[in-house]
């Protein structure tokens, strides 16, 4: 009896609660929906598209469909069968008629240098379809490259629908004729160096920002409001100036006939102008300046929340200023340090304009290469693959930070 009453009383209540909650949830959803859709179209879909392009392999299957089909059961040890040669001859003629030979030729040229010529000249010279059974001889006759296993291996490796070719290439790896993953020949291997350079500059700029930003943030958080607001304006001033203008200002300041060199020469400190720009020094200088507010602001907001009572308490308990700072103040600023460093580092490794303007040839970061492949050579696959590797390393970093931050919280909340 009692149980029935309890159940009877409980059910409508639960239902009512759900209904009330549902209305609230729908309202909340309605509020976030515009941003969600915006992010979907401007962020999620482009990123997904980029990642897809880094593995998408559509050129060869589209231009040479019959060849791809004929090569599907090729063992890769000897030359393919007569059927494959016949299929290729047919595909090439069709492609020439449609004007799409260059598309496949460009893709194959990535794998084996010179494939472009092999394909285009063969297509051009193949006037009529070869007699049945003579396709192999005809093609080898037109270009001896068809008698080489590597040419066919290139077609097979590019026969899609997806490929790891670009991703491997982005980290200086490739497949040899037998399909095994090997290092890219030394004269073509550049991306590991570029990534290393990108991360080195990223770490360097982050460290400089922390070193310069920490005392400023401390001052901002501890000065009286009027003075702190004034100082804050100086910190934010660069924010309100265009990135390009700021970078160009550095060129004016640091160039051979610039203000710094001019002053030093006038003072007689140096005889020849110092090389301050179009090298690594200029990159560090300009990037640190541009990114400094991103370090100062999170640090400031965390330091603002640290009550001065903690330092007083530490002093009253017998800690000299340095000890109190290291053991009481600094540990409480770690969330700010973490957030600031993560922000600056992630922004720094994606920098493009500043290194392009104030750096030398050896100071270009990965973004410059991504831009080069998208705008100059239209190699979307490699550009996307480089972008994907950059995205992945950023994600790993963010995850590590999240783990560390969460770890701190967990020990802070649930250690016992």
């Amino acid at each position, binding site marked *: 009896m009692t149980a029935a009453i309890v159940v009877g009383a409980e059910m409508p209540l639960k239902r009512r609660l759900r209904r009330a909650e549902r209305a609230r949830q729908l309202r909340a959803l309605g509020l976030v929906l515009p941003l969600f859709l915006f992010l979907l179209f401007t962020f999620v879909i482009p990123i997904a598209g980029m990642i897809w392009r880094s593995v998408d392999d559509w050129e060869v299957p589209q231009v040479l469909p019959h060849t791809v089909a004929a090569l599907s059961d090729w063992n890769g040890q000897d030359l393919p069968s007569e059927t494959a040669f016949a299929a290729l001859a047919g595909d090439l003629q069709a492609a020439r008629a449609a004007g799409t030979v260059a598309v496949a030729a460009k893709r194959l040229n990535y794998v084996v240098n010179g494939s472009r010529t092999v394909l285009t000249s063969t297509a051009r010279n193949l006037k009529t379809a070869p007699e049945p059974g003579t396709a192999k001889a005809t093609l080898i006759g037109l270009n001896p490259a068809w008698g080489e296993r590597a040419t066919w291996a290139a077609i097979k490796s590019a026969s899609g629908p997806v490929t790891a070719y670009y991703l491997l290439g982005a980290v200086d790896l490739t497949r040899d004729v037998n399909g095994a993953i090997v290092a890219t020949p030394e004269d073509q291997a550049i991306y590991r160096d570029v990534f290393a350079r990108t991360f080195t500059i990223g770490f360097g700029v982050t460290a400089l920002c922390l070193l310069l930003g920490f005392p400023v943030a401390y001052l901002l958080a501890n000065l009286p409001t009027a003075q702190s607001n004034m100082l804050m304006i100086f910190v934010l001033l660069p924010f309100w100036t265009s990135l390009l203008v700021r970078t160009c200002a550095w060129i004016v300041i640091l160039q051979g006939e610039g203000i710094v060199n001019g002053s030093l020469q006038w003072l007689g400190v140096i005889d020849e102008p110092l090389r301050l720009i179009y090298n690594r020094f200029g990159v560090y200088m300009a990037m640190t300046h541009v990114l400094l507010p991103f370090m100062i602001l999170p640090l400031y907001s965390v330091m603002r929340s640290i009550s001065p*009572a*903690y330092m007083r308490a530490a002093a*009253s*308990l*017998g*800690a000299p200023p340095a*000890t109190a700072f290291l053991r009481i103040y600094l540990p409480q600023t770690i969330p700010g340090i973490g957030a600031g460093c993560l922000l600056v580092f992630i922004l720094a490794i994606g920098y493009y304009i500043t290194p392009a303007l104030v750096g030398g040839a050896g100071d270009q970061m990965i973004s410059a290469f991504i831009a080069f492949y998208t705008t100059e050579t239209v190699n979307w696959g490699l550009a996307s693959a480089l972008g994907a590797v950059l995205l992945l390393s950023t994600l790993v970093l963010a995850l590590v930070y999240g783990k560390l931050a969460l770890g701190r919280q967990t020990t802070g909340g649930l250690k016992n």
Partner: protein
Amino acid sequence: MDGGMMATTQALVRFVGVQKTYDGEHLVVKSLDLDIRKGEFLTLLGPSGSGKTTTLMMLAGFEVPTHGEIFLGDRSIKNTPPHKRDIGMVFQNYALFPHLTIEENVAFPLTVRGVSKAEVKERVTAALQMIKLENVASRHPGQLSGGQQQRVALARALVFKPALVLMDEPLGALDKRLREHMQLEIKRLHETMGITVVYVTHDQGEALTMSDRIAVFNDGIVQQIDSPDALYERPVNSFVANFIGESNVLAGTVENIEQGFCRVALAAGGSVVATAVNVGGVGARTSLSVRPERVSLLTSDDGDVGFNRLPATLKDLIYVGDHTLAVLAAPGNNEFMVKLPAGAYSGLSEGQAVTIAFRPEDCRALDPV
């Protein structure tokens, strides 16, 4: 004021002619001569802005006196930085380090002094036992209730056995019941450990409950420094009389002064005899202070001879539980309060004409308000 008369050998801390100004124009502490005796519980009591917290901060070393000297024992500590003063301090909002566990918080003053690990462990355990919080040793301050945090702050300020412990309104953030409990706990710790405590509060009840002596601050000056009962029973001026406990004020002119008593003609008519505490000569204006619980209500004209008697009209009776508060219209004071013991008000009704009576000893003529 017996602070100045104390033998200097007994004084642990001496303020000599201390002044403090923040803006160079207005003195927050005007002139402070104060002795703090070894082992006593001294409370600095006063309204906000009276200079009591500034005094405490100068003692802790977070503020520097503009003028004068502060001695701890025999040496001047005017230029000693806070961390070398060996003075424990409990802050208003506890200031427990949020990134350290309770254990690490309490161990902090020991580890910065380079005490050996084994001894730190032992003393921290003892300190946590003292405040009955051994079971939360590995938690963080954020997981503790306000009262628990307050006790940890106490343990942390006591664990390094400082000569002096300062407390800056430490119970301000606690609710009433917990505050009363903590008052007794702090008192117990003071008595069992024999430490010297300087306690700042604006709550007079707290000051009366806990202190050996209370220094009443107003306007940058110590108005009176005395034991709680002396302060309550024998205030030296009208500020102290009104700040500590309830007080009825009557204004009048001194007619004559004789053997410590004076006859005062009330401005609104009638005259009373009062203890002359702080009066000018004959003809000077003065204000009289009478405690509500020292006044009786008479419905007839009987009662002891020698009492001051004034006619009054009963305006209101307020039931407060353990007593009843009668509000009367008396000559020159329309809000004259009388505390009646529980059950003693039967037969009284609002609008009734009564007589208020009090002894000359309970009526103190203080400076004009």
